[in-house]
């Protein structure tokens, strides 16, 4: 089991933070384009799910999987969007994404008066805490191959 990458978008669709771990294949487009693609897809899936649902939507979009990877999504009421790609064996990571929001983003970004909200996170502290946290996750273990 492993984690491939992680995206953090603000409410306006700016990518605040990106990190990758065991991502072997690069998409061949610029990072900016990739972020735009990712945000656009998240946005569309969300609105698709809200429209197509036969009942009132409760949790909305949580994750989807293909034959190769699983994408997990978590959105806070303030519109912050967290996306994590993992391999297929990883279960529900809602708690993990919630922890990233409440204990890493809020503590190290929101409470730092020098960071402008809505701009790319440059904080080394956040970067290293994030890396440490993800590497410490029980399902983070690079494949042997």
């Amino acid at each position, binding site marked *: 089991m492993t984690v491939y990458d992680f995206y953090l978008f603000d*409410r*306006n*669709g700016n990518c605040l933070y990106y990190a990758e771990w065991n991502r072997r294949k690069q998409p061949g487009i610029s990072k900016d384009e990739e972020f*735009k693609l990712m*945000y*656009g897809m998240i*946005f*569309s899936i969300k609105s698709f799910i809200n429209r197509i649902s036969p009942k009132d939507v409760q949790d909305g979009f949580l994750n989807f999987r293909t034959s190769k990877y699983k994408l997990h999504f978590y959105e*806070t*009421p*303030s*519109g*912050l969007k967290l996306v994590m790609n993992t391999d297929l064996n990883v279960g529900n990571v809602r708690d993990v994404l919630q922890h990233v*929001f*409440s*204990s890493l*983003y*809020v503590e190290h970004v*929101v*409470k730092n008066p020098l960071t402008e*909200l809505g701009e790319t996170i440059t904080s080394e502290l956040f970067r290293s805490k994030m890396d440490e946290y993800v590497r410490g996750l029980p399902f983070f273990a690079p494949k042997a191959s």
Partner: protein
Amino acid sequence: MSRQAARTGDPRKVNGELFTLTYGALVAQLMKDYENDDEVNKQLEKMGYNIGVRIIEDFLARANSGRCNDFRDVADVISKVAFKMYLGITPVVSNWSPAGDEFSLLLENNPLTDFVELPEGHDSLNYSNILCGVLKGALEMIQMDVDVKFVQDHLKGDNITEVRLKFIKRLEDAVPVGED
């Protein structure tokens, strides 16, 4: 509170008097700088707004309260959870408009004004106007456009301090470029 007590307690908490006096010093300095009540109100609201857009994230991270279904839920959460968490008070929610889009928060004792007496000639100063800004900023971040203002203030001789919140509209999610 002694230093030691402060250290053993919740690190997020500060002495209440220090907080009240710091806020007082801030308002007094603004009065000196702007020499105009309305301008000070505006500055306080702006500061509050900047606090609000950040405090909401902290609130969401800590409170973990579920989704609010209507404005009444919002009022309850503001008074019973948010005010309790940050100011240690629980304002009374009352004076609902018939349409349910407007209500008042009645503050019986406002910790910001503990040692305060307004000097004469400052009838239009809303001493605690920062609260309006905080509420507005925080609610805006969760897709609610709300008008917040003081209608009564204990400092001005009214019996109670009353903050009025009026729901204007729900803000929509930002649409990414190239989609509608």
